[in-house]
């Protein structure tokens, strides 16, 4: 008997025609839309964080030593080579430096292509030499000091740690990332407000039925349960739909990103754990919706006397 009662409470209970309210379909749509926006925001934040991390990894553990050719003439190349060897000797084995590698001329020509154009390759123009220096992680090496010492030893040398551009980029990605996360927060807030309002709308639309249920002896939780189950169903539907659309969009963007020449920006692909975080979004939304609906109804009913 008791068991049957609970079955009744949690399975049946469709005395209020909530499903027929136009606001029902609406809630599905709006939750879906919010989950799409939220997923995209969250994915953007995660991707930008990756991009920033990628650039930081790519550049922060690395220095480029540039050695300029000194003069025209027959022995220019020899002098340059000599100075490169001196620089290598100076760098190799220094505390904090993991690996030192002089780039082949062809590689250098390739790197300089954006500045000098393809013709420079076959040209008489003496090219600078570039030495890639891999730092030990967390070495905390004093780059200005290193630069000074190297320049004293080998005139015409310079060190580029890409600091300014990296700062610029990281500031930018950081700002966009923060914005994306704020938008996500705003969206969750708006979703909660939406559920509060549609629940209140439901209470208002069905005020007569609710009064009747009270008059025939229904308890508050009997009524609240119907709203709560309804909010759960709708927000779950909307959330899943929104998530799927977002997933499709992200996957498509990933493909487009790979195909196009955006090269400079790392591929728009999410890791498994990032996909899992995204999958949590509709679940969290449903949970919030259900709890919000229950709280809203119980509070409103208590106020009705």
């Amino acid at each position: 008997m008791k068991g049957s009662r609970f079955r009744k409470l949690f399975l049946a209970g469709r005395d209020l025609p909530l499903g027929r309210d136009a606001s029902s379909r609406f809630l599905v749509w709006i939750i879906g839309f919010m989950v799409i926006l939220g997923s995209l925001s969250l994915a953007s934040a995660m991707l930008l964080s990756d991009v920033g991390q990628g650039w930081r990894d790519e550049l922060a553990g690395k220095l480029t030593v540039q050695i300029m050719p000194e003069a025209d003439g027959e022995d220019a190349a020899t002098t340059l080579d000599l100075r490169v060897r001196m620089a290598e000797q100076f760098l190799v084995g220094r505390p904090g430096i993991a690996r030192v590698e002089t780039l082949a001329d062809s590689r250098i020509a390739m790197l300089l292509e954006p500045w000098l154009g393809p013709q420079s390759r076959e040209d008489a123009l003496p090219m600078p030499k570039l030495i890639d220096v891999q730092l030990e992680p967390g070495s905390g090496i004093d780059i200005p000091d290193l630069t000074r010492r190297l320049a004293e030893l080998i005139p015409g040398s310079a060190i580029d740690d890409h600091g300014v551009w990296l700062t610029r980029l990281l500031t930018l990605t950081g700002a966009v990332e923060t914005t994306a996360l704020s938008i996500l927060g705003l969206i969750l807030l708006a979703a909660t407000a939406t559920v509060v309002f549609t629940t209140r709308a439901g209470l208002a639309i069905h005020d007569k039925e609710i009064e009747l249920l009270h008059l025939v002896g229904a308890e508050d939780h009997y009524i609240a349960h119907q709203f709560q189950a309804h909010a759960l169903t709708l927000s779950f539907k909307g959330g899943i739909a929104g998530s799927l659309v977002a997933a499709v969009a992200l996957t498509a963007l990933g493909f487009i990103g790979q195909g196009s020449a955006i090269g400079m920006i790392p591929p728009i692909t999410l890791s498994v754990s990032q996909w899992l975080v995204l999958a949590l979004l509709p679940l969290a939304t449903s949970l919030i919706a259900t709890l919000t609906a229950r709280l809203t109804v119980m509070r409103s009913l208590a106020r009705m006397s």
Partner: protein
Amino acid sequence: MDRKKDVVRFQNVGMRYGLGPEVFHDMSFGVKAGSFRFLVGPSGAGKSTLLKLMYLAHRPSRGLIHMFGHDTATVARKDMPAMRRRIGVVFQDFRLIDHLSALDNVALPLRVAGANEEQLSDHVAELLRWVGLENEIHSLPSRLSGGQQQRVAIARAVIGRPDLLLADEPTGNVDNTIAMRILYLLEELNKIGTTVIIATHNEALISRFKFPQLRIEDGRVIDTGAETGAPASRTTNEAAGRGS
């Protein structure tokens, strides 16, 4: 329940809606368990209002109301549902739930009380047959004629065998034949212990069933059954009817 006790007891009850005029004032009367009363009075006299106080939809502006021996002012909110389940109500405007079939509407009080689903539907269908709706068991209220809706409302009020049945103009939309039949049903219910109070304008009914009356006049109530000790059966009621 103590049969000697008053099911309903009003003591100096006054009632006004909001800041409006008093609908009635200093109303004092009691209705004994097992009695049957017609509640009469001109339109706007306060019949529906009096019933609303009894089915706990309103609180009086002043005075005390005891239902089943409990002071309604002190009943905790959480105990209200249980008390309401002891009262069956036929509303003047029916208040059927539009999207539920006649059967589901009638079953509502049982469902809300957590009744067993298997036993429920036979019981409900039988009652609907009793009020002449055997062909409309699965119809929605919007598909029913006015008189048919009224009969669904009556069935819903009696399905839970309430201790107290309150009916507000339950025969306004049916012809005299059906009105009589409904009254016989309520009389049966009364015989097995339910206290019945019916607000009505139907003079044919009042003169045929000579139950004592609660008569609202100038915001006061006169109980024509009070002097004879609230007889419950029709034979003694006829004496009371003559007395009025």
